[in-house]
């Protein structure tokens, strides 16, 4: 190789190193923004605490011997706010990651847990619990387990149809859309036969909110994320290859069918475990990956963590606004996410050069 060519190679590699640094900075920036937002979000709410009071209450809960705070402040912060804030972070993070995985492997910019019928199946499950009172578990968990099981049922149905027809992105998207319409129809039927209160409960469920978060629910969601996200990151190269097409992936040594199924199962599981607690918070899973991709490109090594952070920021930001804009009234977060995210998304979309 000539000296000039070698020099050129160094230039290319340096350029790439710069790109990697920019991305790392972007992720770092998102992370910092999220930490700050968490800090702000815990101070927001109908009970009027100052920032100092809120932080003192958090510290008093963590280190009871060293710090002390009034019992009421501590109760409100620990029992009502803190887990809610962290739940919004986890839910946003998970939904965005599930969305980027689905968009990637199905190679469809519209793929998300919602367009694929997983959310609509969860709504059906919840409706059956609300309207008919039928379900596997009883009490508080009736609606949750129903929503979760139906979400997995939808994923299974999509997988079954795709399996029969030959696993491929197109079959999965079409099967997903069919499943979505089917479950929507079942939900409509249940709404039709339900009483006014039941109808209201179903509609409320579909707005999506993090109102009902608790520490145990947060623990379940974070456990699922802790088990799945590192694995997805570990297989980022395979996701990259699959995003380009089955043929490319196969020729690069990726077991295409097996991987597609596994990734779909993981994405469905993450979605199911989140929306069974929150109701349908649409939009995050669809838009957070797009926003992130426009900024950092499609490499899953960066895309996964970055879109997770964008999702967390979006959902927590939306929830904070939902709690403060009409306080003490709390707006359903699903409505706010759309109001907040859509204009931003449209702005990025119109600004993009290769749109």
């Amino acid at each position, binding site marked *: 190789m000539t000296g000039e060519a070698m020099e050129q190679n160094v230039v290319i590699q340096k350029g790439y190193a710069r790109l990697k640094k920019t991305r790392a900075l972007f992720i770092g920036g998102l992370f910092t923004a999220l930490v700050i937002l968490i800090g702000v979000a815990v101070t927001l709410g109908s009970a009027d605490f100052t920032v100092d009071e809120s932080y003192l209450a958090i510290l008093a809960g963590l280190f009871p011997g060293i710090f002390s705070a009034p019992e009421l402040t501590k109760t409100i912060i620990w029992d009502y706010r803190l887990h809610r804030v962290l739940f919004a972070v986890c839910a946003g993070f998970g939904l965005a990651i599930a969305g980027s995985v689905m968009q990637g492997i199905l190679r469809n910019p519209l793929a998300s847990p919602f367009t694929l019928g997983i959310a609509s199946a969860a709504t059906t499950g919840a409706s059956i619990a609300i309207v008919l009172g039928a379900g596997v578990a009883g009490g508080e968990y009736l609606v949750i387990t129903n929503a979760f099981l139906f979400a997995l049922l939808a994923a299974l149905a999509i997988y079954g149809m795709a399996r029969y027809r030959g696993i491929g992105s197109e079959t999965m998207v079409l099967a997903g859309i069919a499943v979505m319409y089917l479950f929507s129809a079942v939900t409509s039927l249940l709404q039709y036969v339900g009483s006014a209160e039941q109808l209201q409960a179903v509609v409320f469920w579909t707005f999506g909110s993090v109102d009902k978060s608790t520490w145990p629910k947060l623990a379940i969601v974070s456990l699922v994320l802790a088990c799945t996200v590192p694995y997805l990151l570990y297989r980022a190269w395979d996701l990259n290859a699959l995003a380009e097409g089955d043929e490319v992936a196969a020729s690069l040594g990726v077991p295409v069918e097996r991987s597609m199924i596994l990734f779909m199962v993981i994405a469905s599981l993450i979605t199911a475990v989140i929306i069974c607690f929150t109701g349908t918070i649409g939009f995050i899973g669809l838009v957070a990956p797009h926003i992130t991709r426009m900024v950092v*490109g499609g490499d899953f090594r960066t895309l996964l963590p970055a879109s997770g952070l964008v999702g967390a920021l979006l959902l927590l930001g939306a929830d904070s606004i939902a709690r403060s804009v009409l306080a003490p009234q709390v707006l359903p977060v699903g409505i706010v996410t759309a109001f907040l995210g859509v204009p931003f998304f449209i702005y990025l979309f119109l600004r993009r050069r290769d749109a």
Partner: protein
Amino acid sequence: MTARLSVEDLSFAYRDREVLREITFPVAAGEVLGLVGPNGCGKTTLIRCVDGMLTPRGGRVLLSGREIRTMHRREVARAMAYVPQSAGNRTSSTVFETVLMGRRPYLSWTVSPEDEEKVAEALDLLDLRGLALRKVSELSGGERQRVMIARALVQETGVILLDEPTSNLDVCHQMAAMEVLSGLAEERGLAVVIALHDLNLAATYCHRLLVLSAGSVYGYGAPEEVLTEEMLRTVYGIEAVVKRDLSAPYMVPVRSGGLRGRA
């Protein structure tokens, strides 16, 4: 000596429609084989069978004497690269990363400086230096094709299969791509299989041609032997003159029913 790639009695059918019938050919290290034939004759199907993406109904594919069916996917990916037709339309990554993906059969997660160096080398070889940090989706069709060829090169395989790699390239880049491929075949002892529409390009750069006609081998051999007026008439149904006064045979189609037809 064992051929780098050998295909033996390969047959394939979509349900009951037979697409390939008993195809046999070897490709030695350092050899460029051109797959030619009219549209729908089975070139792409053959390449996909060889790469293991389609399961043949009969026959076998051997890589340096080992049957591909007995090999692990990753092993196959280290031995054989594939450049599909019109690839890369969906890629929103940069050129550098798209080519880097070719290292996937060797990578787990981290990328070593050597991997990056190999990518830079391949970019250099295919005249893509200036585009390294651009998004693939922003490139022209021809540039994308060169990106895909670069990716196949960093896969460092002994065999490269290419499906119409020059279809979107202008004549200058067509020749450049073929120069690179035939040069590498010679230098690194690669076995290269290229499906091509342009018979003259195939005759210029390929050591051997395999003519497919309706799923069967019509002819196999050096371009001088295979590219004949008789073959063009039978396989393509066209009248053409094959000139033999250049370094490689050169065919010029004759307009059938031209002025004479109108008179």
